[in-house]
């Protein structure tokens, strides 16, 4: 990465990830059970078709921004990633792959076998949680190193 990312690009990326996380969680029947959908203005969180559509839209933005970053990194021929970042990249790749298989399954002519479906569905969920965990780890490491650097 040769240049710091623009404010708008960073915000857009964060927004897409947030929308993916919320709409992804919304695929489990929990927002109604746990009163989230009862909060004013949040009734939509219990509408599976709405959260599903949001997941698609956010995924499109996310994929474009990830491809932009990957493309730029490859073009600069300077890819220096820490082990944590490599792990994150692998997890995101897994999320994208399982996500695309789910999209294929939802197409009128698509479909997967029962076994594949289960592996992909649970895999997508586990990878999403793993990415969340890795992001948290990264944040803690960054905070520690900044506080160490601080006078």
């Amino acid at each position, binding site marked *: 990465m040769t240049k710091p990312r623009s404010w708008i690009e960073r915000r857009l990326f964060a927004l897409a990830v947030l929308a993916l996380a919320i709409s992804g969680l919304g695929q489990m029947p929990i927002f109604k059970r746990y009163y989230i959908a009862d909060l004013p203005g949040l009734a939509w969180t219990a509408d599976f078709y709405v959260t599903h559509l949001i997941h698609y839209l956010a995924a499109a933005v996310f994929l474009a921004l990830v*491809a*932009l970053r990957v493309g730029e990194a490859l073009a600069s021929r300077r890819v220096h990633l820490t082990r944590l970042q490599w792990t994150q990249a692998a997890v995101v790749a897994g999320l994208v792959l399982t996500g695309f298989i789910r999209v294929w399954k939802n197409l009128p002519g698509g479909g997967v076998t029962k076994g594949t479906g289960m592996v992909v569905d649970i895999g997508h969920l586990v990878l999403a949680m793993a990415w969340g965990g890795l992001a948290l780890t990264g944040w803690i490491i960054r905070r520690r190193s900044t506080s160490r650097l601080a006078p």
Partner: protein
Amino acid sequence: MKKHVSRRQFLGGLGLLGVAGAASVLPAAPARAASSRSAELVTLLDLSKCVGCGACVQACKEANAARYPEPKKPFPPMLPKRVKAEDWSDQREVDDRLTPYTWLYVDHIAGQHDGQPFELHMPRRCMHCQNPPCANLCPWGSCSKDARGVVEIDPATCLGGAKCRDVCPWGIPQRQTGVGLYLDLLPRLAGNGVMYKCDRCTPRLDQGQLPACIEACPFEVQQIGPRQEMEAKARALAAEMPGYLYGLEENGGTNTIYVSPVPFEVLETARAKGQGRPHLAAVGDPFENQTLLAAALVTAPLAGLAGAALRTISRATREADHD
């Protein structure tokens, strides 16, 4: 043999071919393979023939009794308080709606059409949608569709969150609390049993047998066969009757086609409404927008890569200008 089969033909076939040969009576389809439209089986129901005797309902119950839930009681308490147990285990005989113990019921509908009184009987169960939202949106992959067009819920992995019922336009799957995997996970906090519905008698299909309800009907109301053939038959029957079709286009297309001499709008108005009693209104394709967006999902990374290329080129040009 690629023909549709009626009950009589099927029994005749059994006699001739023996049980081993019965598998060939139903069109051969790799039972658990991924969906490919041509191999899907469609059931066609001629409502002008149904007398509402309920033999199909009885046959369904007998054929599937061994797979009915046997819940442990008392149920573990669930949090928060709003989560209610759904228990049908003491009302197994209910036959005027869908329950975890009634995967098929007959709706008896009476009314007026064109100034004439009518009485019609309509077996109701899962429609086995071609692009089933219950299977597509199940968070755990517990609900799936196979190459024969059968949509089934795996009782070993279903957690009973009832999302399948929420996204099914007809509210078909029915919940029984106190059974299933959720009991071994976090029974207080997540899950609420297992969802049940018609799976076209999968164990029978696996052995090349007809679904019990089709076999038991004394009037051969139902036929089962490959999609193309059944579609053509349904249209021909509707033209001859003259009648109306339901299920062909609903919910993006289903593998159940009803042909009725009375329009379905009239039946929808006349039928008794209630929980567990699927409606007869028109249903559009629930994944219309998602299908459109799928193209955007494929193009998005390409757009990102194009952006990266443009940025790299403009950066290189700027640097060259500096030099």
